[in-house]
């Protein structure tokens, strides 16, 4: 209950920034919309077009729920401006508090996503397709979504921790965005990529955060494949938990609390 109460309290502050949140959401929608319009002009079968359109619509909703931008907040405000001091003084784990602060943003952005997708489905007369999925598949997809949110948040927090050692990590953040964009499936489903690029991507964490969960909802995979993807997510989560602990332990020794 304590966590729920903190979550609800942080939600109040997010409501005060709802305008900014809407703008961020709309900006993140631009790319999937462009790509969707591009595919609608392509010479492909109506079944494939329906799958691709559904993929991009799910990407808008899923992306806004899964992908946070905590790394900038952690690097610039917490570490460089010294606001981390406020968290360190509290008898509550930093990761949990950041997580509870981030969740309301994800929930709000996800609801924006649902509204926008509903609106555009109506305007373009698109029927969203999830393929033919069993109950087990939906259960696995649900678990994959939770793992994807966890993995994405862990990845972003670890990225933000780079600021313990560098004065300007912005370039690294941009680079990670680029990888996420290309290898995370934001441009197109990875199954459309050259096999070499797709094979490389499958060995990296990016598709496990966005592409696999979204493609799973769109009905790209069998139950057996979903199990393997879920296991892959767990492996990446374990790696990033280890990385998080190591970066946090050593990073705090570098923390100077500048500006505090």
């Amino acid at each position, binding site marked *: 209950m304590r966590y729920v109460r*903190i979550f609800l309290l942080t939600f109040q502050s997010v409501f005060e920034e709802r305008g900014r949140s809407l703008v961020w959401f709309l900006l993140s929608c631009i790319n999937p919309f462009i790509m969707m319009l591009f595919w609608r002009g392509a010479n492909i079968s109506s079944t494939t077009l329906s799958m691709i359109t559904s993929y991009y619509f799910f990407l808008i909703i899923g992306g806004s729920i899964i992908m946070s931008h905590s790394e900038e907040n952690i690097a610039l405000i917490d570490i460089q401006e010294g606001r981390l001091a406020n968290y360190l*003084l509290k008898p509550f784990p930093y990761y949990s508090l950041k997580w509870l602060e981030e969740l309301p943003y994800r929930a709000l952005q996800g609801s924006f996503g649902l509204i926008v997708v509903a609106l555009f489905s109506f305007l373009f007369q698109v029927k969203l397709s999830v393929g033919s999925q069993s109950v087990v598949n939906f259960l696995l997809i649900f678990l994959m979504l939770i793992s994807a949110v966890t993995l994405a948040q862990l990845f972003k927090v670890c990225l933000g921790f780079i600021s313990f050692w560098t004065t300007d990590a912005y370039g690294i953040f941009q680079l990670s965005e680029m990888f996420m964009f290309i290898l995370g499936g934001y441009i197109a489903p990875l199954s459309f990529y050259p096999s070499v690029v797709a094979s490389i991507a499958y060995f990296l964490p990016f598709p496990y955060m966005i592409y696999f969960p979204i493609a799973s909802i769109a009905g790209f995979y069998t139950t057996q494949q979903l199990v393997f993807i879920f296991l892959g997510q767990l492996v990446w989560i374990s790696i990033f938990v280890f990385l998080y602990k190591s970066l946090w332990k050593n990073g705090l020794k570098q923390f100077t609390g500048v500006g505090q």
Partner: protein
Amino acid sequence: MSIISVKNLVKEYSVYKKEPGFLGSLHSLIARKYETVRAVDGLSFDIEEGELIGFIGPNGAGKTTTLKCLSGLLYPTSGKVDVLGFTPFDRKTKFLKQIALVMGQKNQLWWDLPAIETFSLNKEIYEIPDKQYKETVYNLAELLDAKEQLQVQVRKLSLGQRMKMELIAALLHNPRVLFLDEPTIGLDVVMQQNLREFVKEYNRRYKATILLTSHYMGDVEALCKRVIIINHGKILFDGLLSDLIRKHAPYKLISIVLTNMINPKDLEGLGEIKKFTYPELVLSVPMNNASEITAKLLKRLPIEDVTIENPDIEDIIRDVFSKS
């Protein structure tokens, strides 16, 4: 037994030094020069429970760094720090629930919401029971005369009102040890006075141990019996404020308003003339002979008014720094 014990505390920072100009920038692309700065240099002191101590020093003396080490924000380079039986940097939950650090230049309040919402968040984080929370908010708000501002959006509050809310947020869990870093910075004299009275009353009422840093000597004079003076990360003085005055300024200032002009030679042997602009005269006299000399002056001079004062604490501190 000491509630805070510091032994040979050292904290060093690595600072990037850039050579000036365009060539310096080019050079920094290839090889950067770092310098180690020792912000705290072997500090040792002990603090008993319930003490209210002034931690004084110029900018860059190492005051805030020391407070950060004591509250567990910074990892010391070397030395031993013990606060309430804990090593601060371990940041154990039990330790964090017994301390608070208030920094005058930073805040923890949600900017767009009333302060009471931040208090509710802290209530959950510190697991404060409902009854205790309500009582503490009420008592602190009353003590600070801030009940009216609890429901007002933080961004709409004045600096002084915000500082009051910061104090309430930091004290909700009734910390046994309170670190105050420049709590009166930027405040007007009335608000400074209010906060001083609050800190004094809080220390008295809750028996809290308070370590206060401030640039305003008024804060230290009004609140602290004991002071620790540091510069360049080293302790220059640790003791009672009265001992500091006795040691570094063993004199008193006699301020006189004359009714008639006098010859300054009449004052020979009585004390040093600090200022003489008729009708005002200020004499510096040895502390032990102040009353005897005042009596002599009253007999010899045409006096309308006379006051005896201790020397300005700021002058004393400046004197300590200049000798360091």
